[in-house]
C-alpha cells in the first residue's frame, strides 16, 4: 500500500468532464439551492419552498442508496433485492438516537423510556437500546449494523456460491423476515408504528427550516463523499476484479482471486453506504417504520439503477432522481397509476435501454458527432 495512490488516483485526470460535473452539482446543491431557499422572497417565482428542500434532501439520500446498489449490482454483478433492509437499519439507528433525545418531552413525560415502551408497560430500557443516547454511537451503529449483517449474510451466501436469481431471492427473504420481525412489538422498535414524534437532532429542532436545510446540505455532502468512495473503489484494481467477477466469476478463480472476498467487500461497503443514507433520511421524513423493509422497496432501488444505467455510478444517481421525481409528480397527479408506470418503466428499460438513460445519452451524443 503506497500513500500517494489515494490522491493520485482521485485526481487522475482520466475524465475531466466528470470532475467538472461534480463541481457543477456541488455548486447547484450547496450554493444555488440554499440561496433560492434563503435569499429569495417567499412570493418570488424563484423562491424554493422548505418542503422542496426536504424533498431534494430525500432524493439525495435515495441517490446515495442507488449508488450503493450500483456498486454491488453494476460492478460485482450481485443483484441484491434486500438493500432496503440496510437502508432501514441505518434509519432505525438514527431513529433510536432521536427517540432518546426526546427525553421527558414525550406524551408520558418519561425521561427513561420512549413512549411506546411506556405504553407497552415496559419497566426498563432493553439492552440493545443502550448507547443510543449518544450521537456518535448511533452514527456508528448506522454503519456497523448494516455492514455486519451484510458481511455475515454475504459470507454464507457467496461462500456457498449462491449467485444470480437464487441470491436475489434470499435477499428478498432477508428483508421480508426483518420486516415481519420489526412489526412485532416485543422486538422493542415500536412495532407497527415504528419510531416517530422526534423533536430535535443534536439540539437542532427538526421543525425548523434551518435544520431542514442543514440536513439537506449534509445529504448532498454525503452523496458527494459516497460517490468519491465508490469511484475510488471501482477505479482501483479491485474494481476491475469486481467487473471480472461480474462477467466471468469462475474464470477469476483460476487467476487466484477469491470471488467470495471480492463480492463480500463490495456487498459490505454497499450495505454501509445504504445505512448511512437511511440515517440521513429518517430525520428528514420524521419517521421510520417496518414498511421500509418491504420487499417492494428493495426492488424499486434496483429499478432506479436500471433506469439510470448500471455499472456507471453516475447513472445510479441520475436514475434515483429521475424515477423519484416522476414518482412524486405522479403520486400527486394519479397515484393509482404509479405502480403500473414503475413496472412499465422497468420492462421498457430492460428491453429497450439496457444501458439506461446514461446509455441513451451516449447514443444521442455519438449520433450528433456522426452528423457533425
Amino acid at each position: 500500500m503506497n500513500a500517494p495512490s489515494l490522491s493520485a488516483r482521485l485526481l487522475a485526470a482520466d475524465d475531466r468532464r466528470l470532475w467538472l460535473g461534480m463541481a457543477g452539482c456541488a455548486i447547484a446543491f450547496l450554493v444555488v439551492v440554499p440561496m433560492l431557499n434563503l435569499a429569495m422572497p417567499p412570493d418570488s417565482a424563484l423562491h424554493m419552498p422548505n418542503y422542496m428542500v426536504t424533498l431534494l434532501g430525500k432524493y439525495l439520500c435515495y441517490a446515495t442508496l442507488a449508488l450503493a446498489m450500483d456498486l454491488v449490482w453494476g460492478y460485482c454483478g450481485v443483484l441484491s433485492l434486500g438493500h432496503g433492509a440496510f437502508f432501514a437499519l441505518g434509519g432505525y439507528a438514527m431513529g433510536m438516537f432521536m427517540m432518546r433525545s426526546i427525553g421527558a418531552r414525550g406524551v408520558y413525560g418519561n425521561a427513561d423510556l420512549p413512549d411506546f415502551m411506556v405504553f407497552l408497560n415496559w419497566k426498563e430500557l432493553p439492552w440493545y437500546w443502550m448507547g443510543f443516547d449518544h450521537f456518535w454511537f448511533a452514527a456508528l451503529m448506522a454503519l456497523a449494523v448494516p455492514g455486519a449483517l451484510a458481511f455475515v449474510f454475504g459470507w454464507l451466501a457467496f461462500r456457498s456460491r449462491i449467485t444470480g436469481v437464487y441470491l436475489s431471492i434470499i435477499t428478498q427473504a432477508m428483508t421480508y423476515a426483518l420486516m415481519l420481525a420489526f412489526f412485532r412489538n416485543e422486538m422493542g422498535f415500536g412495532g407497527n408504528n415504528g419510531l416517530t414524534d422526534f423533536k430535535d437532532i443534536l439540539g437542532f429542532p427538526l421543525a425548523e427550516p434551518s435544520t431542514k436545510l442543514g440536513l439537506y446540505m449534509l445529504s448532498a455532502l454525503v452523496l458527494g463523499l459516497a460517490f468519491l468512495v465508490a469511484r475510488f473503489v471501482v477505479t482501483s484494481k479491485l474494481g476491475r476484479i469486481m467487473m471480472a467477477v461480474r462477467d466471468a466469476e469462475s474464470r477469476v478463480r483460476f487467476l487466484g482471486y477469491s470471488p467470495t472476498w471480492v463480492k463480500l467487500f463490495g456487498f459490505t461497503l454497499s450495505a454501509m453506504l445504504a445505512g448511512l443514507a437511511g440515517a440521513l433520511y429518517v430525520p428528514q421524513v420524521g419517521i421510520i417504520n417496518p414498511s421500509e423493509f418491504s420487499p417492494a422497496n428493495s426492488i424499486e432501488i434496483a429499478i432506479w439503477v436500471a433506469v439510470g444505467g448500471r455499472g456507471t455510478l453516475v447513472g445510479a444517481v441520475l436514475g434515483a432522481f429521475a424515477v423519484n421525481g416522476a414518482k412524486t409528480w405522479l403520486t400527486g397527479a394519479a397515484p393509482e397509476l404509479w405502480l403500473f408506470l414503475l413496472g412499465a418503466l422497468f420492462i421498457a428499460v430492460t428491453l429497450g435501454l439496457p444501458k439506461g438513460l446514461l446509455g441513451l445519452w451516449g447514443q444521442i451524443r455519438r449520433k450528433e458527432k456522426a452528423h457533425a
Partner: protein
Amino acid sequence: MLDDKFEVQVDEPHGPGVPAAGSILYLDGVSVSFDGFKALNALSLILAPGELRTIVGPNGAGKTTMMDVITGKTRPDEGDVLFDEKVDLTRLDESEIANLGIGRKFQKPTVFEHLSVFENLELALKADRGAFATLMFWLSGEQRDTIDATMARIGLADKSRHLAGALSHGQKQWLEIGMLLMQDQRLLLLDEPVAGMTDSETEATAQLILDLARDGSRSLVVVEHDMEFVRALGAKVTVLHEGSVLAEGTLETIQADSKVIEVYLGR
C-alpha cells in the same frame, strides 16, 4: 477408496520409494464420472519438474476433464492428485490451486471481455490477491514494463486499450497465453492453445512454448489436436482414450503404435 500400494500420506515427510517423489504433478488412479459415464477412468500420469508434455486424444477422451481435476474445477471420485510431490490438490479450491503456482489456459478462450487488453494482463500480474491489497494497488513502473513486454511478446502491443471482447479468436488465445505468462506459474496447462490460429500464428505459439520450456523453470502440459504443432514441440506425447492413458512416448513411436492407430482410424 485409495489403492493401498499407492496411498501417499499428505503433509508428511516422504521416504524413498514414494511414487510421487521427484514429480511436479502426479495423478494416480483418477476417476471422474458424470451421471455414470466415466470421463476419466483410473488415469495415471506423472510429470517431472521442467518437463514439457503434449497430450493428444480423440474428442471426449477426457483431456479437458483432466485439467479440470488438476485445477480444482472438478473433484475426482477416486484417485490421488498431487502437486510438488505432496500437496493434495483434491482438497483445494480453484483460487488456492492457482496461488500454488498452477496456471491454465482454457480450451474456449476466456478473457474478461469488458476489460481492456492491458487490464486483463494487469489482473493476471503476479501480485497480492487480497481484497484490500488490490484496492490499494498501484502499478509500479517496473510492473508496467512487464505488461508492455508481455503485450509485445503476444503481438498485442498496439491493442493495449482495446476491449478484450473485440479481439479475434486467435488474439484472444494469445491474450490468454499472455495472462498465463503474467502469472509466472510453475505449472502451465494449455488446452488447445492453437485452435483457431493461422499457420504462422501456430508456428509462433510453438516457438513461444518452446521458449517457456527451455530454461526448465516451468513445467508445461499442452493438449492439442494439431499434429504439426505437436511435432514442432518435439516433446513426449501421452495419448488419452476413454479416460485413461493409451500410450506414451515420442511422436514417432506413438504414431507407429497399433492401438493408437486403431483409435484414430477406427472412428
